[in-house]
């Protein structure tokens, strides 16, 4: 089906695509050219805007501005029907299959070919068999979806797209649910498809996959397309750097750390997610009073799960945690409320969904997690005056604007929302402070303020665990840096570790023998 004569016109050409959701700009003026018959990787961290861009291409979202050209022709894609008509097929991260339908029934769903099923089914069977043979996509077409392993379910999704005549296939994080062997098989299918003239766009945040399979790679960061490279002419280190990027960070002045007693000890911690996939794999580390330990890594390598397990939100699979020398009952009574009382403060990575209740007033948010504290509650009742006075004090100290404790948290800017969370967690004199992405979506002025506060916490003897995907942030704040990759801590570096060295570790390349800089 690939038309060799129109080789000059790229399969996809996006120019100036912008899309914002309220105040969040998910895509900023994106240009992208995907040549016909290639595998094009789009890499970037979670939230970089990859999925939004592809959803625009597939008609789920409408770009605020910009043009889309398919095979050289400018088209509008108002819905996914139009995308299918233009030869675009998409395989979503979460499969869209009817579990108790057979493979065949799923494939023809929405393309039944008339009111009488029988004719359509006969035609579909023949066509499906041809597709399976052409692309080595072996699936029993009469099997029920619920009986198939995820790897095969994914093939059904690919078949669905091909059955609808897709020449361009978009796959969103296709290997997220696959075992390494299944992933390798998937890559062989990709090669088959490419050799038959199909164009493939692979969205991922895994560098290994990009290097293994793509011809070209585009890097997205914070809604922008920051670079496009020939895969053969780049390397993981460069890509990792491009993905993480550098922010306009000032180097924070700080004294040498003077670590004291062990305040947080994590031993052999293993955490699984709902699906049973190991997210944190046998992780051990120690944080002493008066030091900041940074955890660097590309987002999605287990940092979030680590934080959630330490703070008591999720139960780990195994392992022990000591807080201030005393063990935490990780599988029993330890919940966030009890840990807070014992001095575990937690600034979560996602302030919108975890750290704040956006429709609540600022003052109500300033007691979240501490609502049982005697400073705010007497008996059953909230002490409204005390809460308000306390909120006002924090607003002053942290310069939260506008200084209105009655305003809904959702109406504050990102930086001020973060200050609400920080003031709540820092002013309780914690033993251990867990901080996730302290400056994500925060303006430059607030970044400096927040960094100074974190250093002050360290200097007053708190043990600080800092998780950030901003390498510069880790490098300027942390006294020691642990690098997480695929759920494991793959290296530990001192404050003088170079960006390149950390970047390599973040890409999963452990060369501790080569790099000898140990503090």
């Amino acid at each position: 089906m690939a038309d060799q004569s129109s080789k000059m016109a790229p399969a996809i050409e996006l120019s100036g695509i912008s899309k914002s959701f309220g105040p969040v700009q998910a895509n900023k003026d994106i240009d992208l050219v995907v040549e016909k018959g290639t595998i094009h990787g789009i890499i970037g961290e979670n939230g970089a805007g990859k999925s939004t861009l592809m959803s625009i291409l597939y008609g789920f979202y409408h770009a605020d501005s910009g043009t889309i050209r398919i095979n050289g022709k400018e088209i509008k894609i108002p819905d996914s029907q139009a995308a299918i008509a233009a030869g675009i097929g998409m395989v979503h991260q979460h499969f869209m299959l009817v579990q108790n339908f057979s493979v065949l029934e799923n494939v023809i769903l929405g393309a039944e070919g008339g009111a009488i099923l029988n004719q359509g089914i006969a035609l579909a069977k023949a066509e499906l068999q041809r597709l399976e043979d052409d692309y080595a996509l072996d699936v029993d077409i009469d099997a029920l979806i619920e009986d198939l392993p995820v790897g095969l379910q994914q093939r059904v999704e690919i078949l669905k797209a091909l059955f609808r005549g897709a020449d361009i296939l978009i796959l969103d994080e296709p290997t997220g649910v696959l075992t390494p062997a299944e992933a390798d098989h998937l890559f062989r299918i990709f090669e088959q498809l490419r050799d038959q003239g199909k164009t493939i766009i692979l969205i991922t945040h895994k560098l290994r996959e990009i290097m293994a399979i793509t011809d070209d790679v585009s890097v997205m960061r914070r809604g922008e397309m920051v670079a496009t490279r020939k895969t053969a002419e780049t390397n993981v280190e460069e890509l990792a750097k491009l993905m993480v990027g550098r922010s306009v960070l000032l180097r924070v002045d700080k004294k040498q750390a003077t670590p004291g007693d062990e305040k947080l000890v994590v031993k052999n911690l293993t955490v699984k997610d709902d699906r049973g996939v190991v997210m944190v794999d046998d992780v051990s580390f120690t944080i002493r009073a008066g030091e900041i330990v940074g955890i660097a890594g590309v987002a999605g390598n287990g940092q979030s799960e680590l934080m959630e397990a330490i703070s008591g939100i999720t139960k780990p699979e195994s392992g022990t945690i000591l807080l201030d020398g005393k063990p935490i009952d990780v599988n029993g009574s330890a919940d966030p409320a009890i840990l807070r009382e014992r001095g575990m403060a937690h600034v979560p990575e996602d302030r919108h969904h975890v750290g704040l209740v956006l429709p609540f007033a600022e003052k109500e948010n300033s007691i979240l997690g501490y609502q049982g504290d005697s400073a705010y509650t007497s008996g059953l009742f909230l002490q409204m005056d005390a809460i308000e006075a306390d909120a006002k004090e924090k607003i002053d100290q942290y310069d939260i604007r506008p200084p209105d404790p009655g305003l809904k948290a959702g109406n504050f800017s990102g930086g001020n929302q973060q200050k609400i969370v920080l003031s709540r967690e820092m002013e309780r004199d914690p033993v251990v402070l867990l901080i996730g992405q302290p400056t994500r979506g925060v303006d430059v002025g607030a970044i400096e303020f927040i960094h100074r506060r974190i250093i002050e916490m360290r200097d007053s003897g708190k043990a600080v665990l800092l998780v950030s995907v901003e390498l510069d942030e880790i490098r300027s704040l942390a006294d020691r840096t642990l690098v997480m990759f695929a759920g494991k801590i793959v290296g530990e570096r001192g404050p003088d570790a170079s960006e390149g060295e950390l970047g390599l570790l973040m890409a999963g390349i452990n060369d501790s023998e080569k790099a000898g800089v140990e503090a």
Partner: protein
Amino acid sequence: MKNELPKWADYILLPVINLTVAFIVAGMVVLMVGENPLEAAYILVRGAFGYGGGIAYTMYYATNFIFTGLSVAVAFHCGLFNIGSEGQAIIGALGVALAALTLDHLMPWWVIFPLAIVGSALFGAAWALIPAWLQAKRGSHIVITTIMFNFIASSVMVYALVEVLKPAGSMAPQTRTFEQAGQIPKLDWLFEVFGSGLQGAPLNLSFFLALIMAFLVWVLIWRTRFGYELRTTGTNPTAAVYAGIPPVRTIVITMLISGGLAGMMALNPVMGDQARIELDFTAGAGFVGIAVALMGRSHPLGIIFAAILFGMLYQGGAELSFDMPNISRDMIIAIQGLVILFAGALEHMFRPSLIRLFSRFGRSSDASLAEAA
């Protein structure tokens, strides 16, 4: 450009628009059966508010709806859609009957009344316990389970009346009539002050109980620690877990409170009016409570006003079907249905366009300000 309405528009303008549309559509229905809609509206309002007895009846019905409206609202603040107020009220009546039937020849009303309050609340709460537990522990959707429990409650009540509570030899499926001490005093004295009697309306002391409960619900939701936890769980469940608020406990306690409030509704008709349990004494008040809570924006004050509105529809509607024979009892139910439809189910129909209107208006006034400057 926030996707929000100013408070006054949210709490007053939007309900008024919804009501107006409901009445316009209802008016067209009245027109279709060949009656004058304006005249019908006049009769309806006069019947509900035109004389002492009418007002008393309106307030009597409103009492039912305040209880069930509060019940739905409390659950709603916790993100739970309790459709089961009807069933919880039915079972609540058993608590009332327990107090009244066993004590009405032994003790004065002011002893029995508090016991009946406790009984109705406990029975109503108990009926909410199983759906709450299933939701919290097993994730069984509370809408489904509470609907099912409504049917079970009806059947339980039929069984209880026919097999247990019916006096021997009686033909009617109802309890014996409570003695004077087993009845809640009527509010004649209140209406004497205004120079009119109750004129037979069953308005009783439980009206004030409803108002007190409305105040207590306000305190619970916005002034107690549990209310804070309940709202957090309802608004942002992940933040609630982060804050160490146990979801199971919060859901179960919320539903117990919700069920208790629904159960207390039984006091008004059973102990305040009929002085016995009759079949179908709830007359759908549990379902009206859903519309009342939606229309009152789950705020106790809004619920009181919405309850009075629906009380007006019940009472004025009865008068209307009496005065205009073309408008049958079924028509009145249809009109009530329209109000529920527009004020409850279609509550969000006009919201997006109103928000758009406001944001455009806001923008143009910003622009004109800028020009003026």
